[in-house]
C-alpha cells in the first residue's frame, strides 16, 4: 500500500492539486508506484484509482498510453529506442534490428538473464542525435545519444558490472 508505505510523499503529491482536480495526481502517483518493481502492480492500480476517485479502467488506460509506465514486470533495464519518423529516416530501425540481433531478442522481449528489455518509443526530442534511446531502470531515466550497436553492448556490460557490485 503506497499510502501506508510513503504517507508523506503521497500527501505531498496530492497537495499539489486542488481537491476537485485531484485526478491530475495520477501521473506522479503512477511514477512513484512503479519505482518499486519497475511496473505498476494490480494493488497499486486499485489504490490509485480509489485515492483519486477514478475508475481502475482509466488508470489502466493511462498506463497503456504512456511508454513511461508499465503494467508488467520486464527486464531490470528497459532500453527504449526511438523509432519515430525523424529517427527512422536516419537509420533508427536498422540500429534497432542490429541491437535485437545481437541480444537475441525481438522488440518487446527481455534477454534471458532478465537484464535488458528492448522497447520502441515515440519521439524523445533528440532527433538530431540518432540513433538514440533512453533507459528506464531503478536508477531512473537516462538518455544515450549518437549510439552505435557496439557502444550499446559496452554500455550493457558496464551496467551489469555496476549491478553486481551493488549486490
Amino acid at each position, binding site marked *: 500500500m503506497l499510502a501506508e508505505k510513503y504517507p508523506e510523499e503521497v500527501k505531498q503529491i496530492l497537495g499539489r492539486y486542488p481537491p476537485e482536480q485531484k485526478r491530475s495526481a495520477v501521473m506522479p502517483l503512477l511514477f512513484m508506484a512503479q519505482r518499486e518493481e519497475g511496473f505498476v502492480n494490480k494493488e497499486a*492500480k486499485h489504490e490509485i484509482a480509489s485515492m483519486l476517485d*477514478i*475508475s*481502475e*479502467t*482509466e488508470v*489502466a*488506460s493511462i498506463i*497503456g*498510453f504512456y511508454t513511461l509506465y508499465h503494467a508488467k514486470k520486464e527486464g531490470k533495464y528497459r532500453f527504449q529506442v526511438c523509432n519515430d519518423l525523424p529517427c527512422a529516416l536516419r537509420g533508427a530501425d536498422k540500429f534497432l534490428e542490429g541491437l535485437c540481433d545481437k541480444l537475441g531478442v525481438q522488440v518487446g522481449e527481455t534477454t534471458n538473464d532478465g537484464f535488458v528489455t528492448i522497447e520502441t518509443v515515440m519521439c524523445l526530442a533528440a532527433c538530431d542525435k540518432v540513433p538514440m534511446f533512453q533507459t528506464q531502470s531503478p536508477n531512473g531515466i537516462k538518455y544515450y545519444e549518437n549510439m552505435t550497436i557496439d557502444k550499446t553492448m559496452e554500455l550493457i556490460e558496464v551496467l551489469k558490472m555496476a549491478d553486481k557490485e551493488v549486490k
Partner: protein
Amino acid sequence: MTKQVTLTIDGIQIDVPDETLVVDAAKKAGIDIPVFCYHPKMEPVGMCRMCLVEIGRPMINRSTGQPVLNEDGQPTMQFMPKPETACTNLVSEGMVVLTQSESAKEAQKDIIEFLLTSHPLDCPICDKGGECPLQNLTMEHGPGKSRFLFDGKFKMEKQIRLGELIVLDRERCIICARCVRFQEEVAGQAVLAIDDRGRGSEIISVSEPGFDSVFSGNTTDICPVGALTTTDFRFGARPWELLSAASICGQCPVGCNITFNTRREAKSAGKVVIKRVMPRQNEQVNETWICDKGRFAYHYAKSKERLSKPLLRKDDKLKTTSWSSATKLVAEKLGEAGKDTIVLASGRLSNEDLFNLKSLADGLGGKAVLYTEMGGGDLVTQIGVGQGTNFSDMGQGDAIFVIASDLYEEAPIWWLRVKQAADRGAKLIVANSRETKLDKFANFVVRYSNGDEVKTVQDLGGTGKIAQAFSKADNAIVLFGSDGLGLEGSTHLATACANLLEETGHIGKANNGLIGVWPKANDQGAWELGFHPEPDLAAILKGKAVYIVGADPANDNPALAKALKKAKFVVVQDLFRTATAELADVILPAQTYTERDGTFTSGERRAQRFYAAVPGLGESKPDYAITSEIAEKLNIQLEGTSSVLVFEKLAASVKDFAGLSYAKLAEVTEQWPIVGRGDLYYGGSTYENTQGLGVQLVSASDRGETVSIPKVRNDAGLRPKKDELLAVPITKLYDRGTTVAPTEFLTERIGDVTIALHPEAAKKLGVEAGKRVKISFEDVEGEAVVKIDETISAGVALVPRSMGLAIREPVVIKVQ
C-alpha cells in the same frame, strides 16, 4: 444568451441558434454530413475526421466590425486552406458550408480509405452488417478501391469479452471513442477506456465484473461498426430479416419506449420469436437509451415453464381442462362469494387488465387489492408531476430530491436522467440510510438512520441550507422509493413528501411534483384505477374467494401461503405455475404483454401503448379477455374482444384518463436528435418513434383542485433496539423475480442472496465478508452471504428483495 444566426449549407439557407454545431445545423436542413465519432448526445471530440467540409466565414473589417464587401456588394468569404470538421465548429452569422465541394469530397473519401486500412471488412459474418454506419458511409463516400497493401492489414485477436454481456471485436473497432465517452459523459461510469496508442489502441474494461454498468448495451447501439455486440444477439439474426413491434419496457416504472425485433425461425420450431430489444426514442421518457435489464431480461416470455392451458383441481391434483369449464367454475365460485371476493392483482398487468379486474370486483361488491409492498400511490395520483414534465428540461435553478430509493438499481434510466440534470446544474439532494451510486453526483447527501425517513423530509421544509436549495428552486421534483421500507413506512414517507411539495409550492406545474419509484412497471396505473394495497392481507383472505392475477404471494410470504390455504376458493391467473398457483383450485394461463396490445402508466403518469410483438403461447389469453369471460358468466358486461375497447371504456370512466384514446396515445411529434434507419450513422441504431409518445395524465393539482393530504405521523418508523439487528429490504436490479431469472446469461449478475452488515455488527456476530450465515425471522428461514457496508448503522442489515429471503418490511432478525 443564445441568438439566431443565418448560414448557408450547400446553397440552403437556414436559421439556427448560435450554439449549434455545423453538423447539427446541416442535419436540420436535411443535409447529411458523414460522422463516426460525433454523436448528438455527446460532446464533440473531432477524433475521426470523417465530417470534413469546407467552411467559409465572412471577412470582417476589424475597425468597423462590419463585413468586407466585394464588387457585387456581397460579403467577401474567407475559407480555411484545408477542410474543417463540421462536428467541432459552431455556426456563425453568414457562414457558408460546402459539404459537396471537390476538396470536401476528396477529404471524406480519404478518411474512409484510411479507416479501411485497418478494418477487416468481414461484413458477411458481422452482426452490424445491414445496419452499419461504416458500411453505409463507405458505399456513399468511400473510394471503392484501396491503395493499401493487404499484408499490412491490422490483425488482432477477435471476440474479447468485456464482460458477460458485451463482446469486443478489436479488428473492427475504429477508435471513435463513442463507447468510452458514453460511459463517462452520459452514464457517469468510466468503465471503458482506450489502452495503448496508435495502431495498438484497443478498448478495455478492467472493472469487476467486466464492463460493470447497467447501461452497457447502449454502447452497442452507438458503436458505428460491429466492434461491440451483445452476447444475447450476436450471430442471432441479420437485421434485415427482423420485424419490429413498438412496445414499452415492463421491468420498471420508467416506462422506456422499446422496439421488439422479431423473426420466424427454424430453431424455434417455426415460431415467431423476439430476437432482441432495442431502445425506441422518446425524448421525454428514455431519450435514446434503455438499461440492460430492459434489453436482456425479456427471455422469460419464451420460457418453457410458461403455462399454456387452463388447469382445474380434481382429486387434489391440477389437471388440464377447457377454458369454458375453467371459467364456468370460477364464475360460479366468485358469484357465490359475491362481496366476499378479493381480486388481488399486481402492477405487472396493463391498464386494460386492471380496469376489467376492478370492474369485476366492483360488480361483485368485492375488493380490488393491489399486491405491493410500497404505498403512497393515491397521493401520486392526485399530485403527480405536472403535465409536460421532462427531466431533460431540468438544470440550473431546479432541484431534485431522491429519498429512500436506490435509483440505479430500481429505475436505471431515471438515475441516468437525474444525474444528467445534476450535470446541467440542478441541485440534487440524495437522502438514504446508506450509500448509493447517486451520492457521487449529489450536491447534498443526507444520511439518516432507518426510521428517520419522515423526519428527514420534514427537515427539508425547514430553513437549513439544503431546505433552502429545495424550497427556493424554480422547479422541484421528489422521487421517493421503498429502500429500507415496507408498505407502512413508504406510505408515511409519501405523505411527508406530498406535504413538503405542497408547502413549498412545487405542484401543479411542469417539472414539479411527486414520483413514486414503484417496484412494478404499472403500479402507478393500478393506483389510478382504484387498486389499493391491504395493510394486513393475510388477515382478510380467510374464507374468501380470491382471484389472484400476476402475483405470487405464497412464494413471497409464508404467512400469505398459510392464509391462502384457508381461503374458500383460489383462482390464479399467471404466466407461470408459481407457488401460489400450486395452491389454486383453478389456474388460468395468461399471455405476456409481448403477445398482445395494451397500455402502461409510468411513474411519471404517462400512459403509453405497447403493441403485440409475437403470437400468444398455446391457449393462453390476454388478462383482460379472461376477466371479461368470467364476468360475462356473471352478467357483468365488460369488453373482452379487444384492448382498444377496454381502453375506451376506461377513458370514459376514469377522470384523469378523460379524452384519451389509443389514437391519441399513438401520436408523435418531431424529436431531436433525428434517429432511425436512414440516420443510424448519426444517432445510432435506436428506433425512431412512429407509434406514439404517450400522454401524461392530468392530475388534480394540474387542474388546480385542492388535494387532501393526510397529516403524517413522524414516529412511525421502526428503529433497532439495543442488541437487535433490524433487517431492511432493498431492491436489486437483477433479482430472482419471474421476469428476470429465466434469462440464463444474467445468472452471474443476479448472484447470491446477500446480507449487508456494518463491520461492527459483523465483528460482533463473528462473521466476515463472503461467509454464509443462517438467517431467521418470523416464519422465514434461509441463508445469505455476508457483505460489508460501512455506510449503514451497526443495528441494521440490508437484505435484497426477491432473492429468496422473503423480506417485505423492516424486521428484527437472528443471524447465525
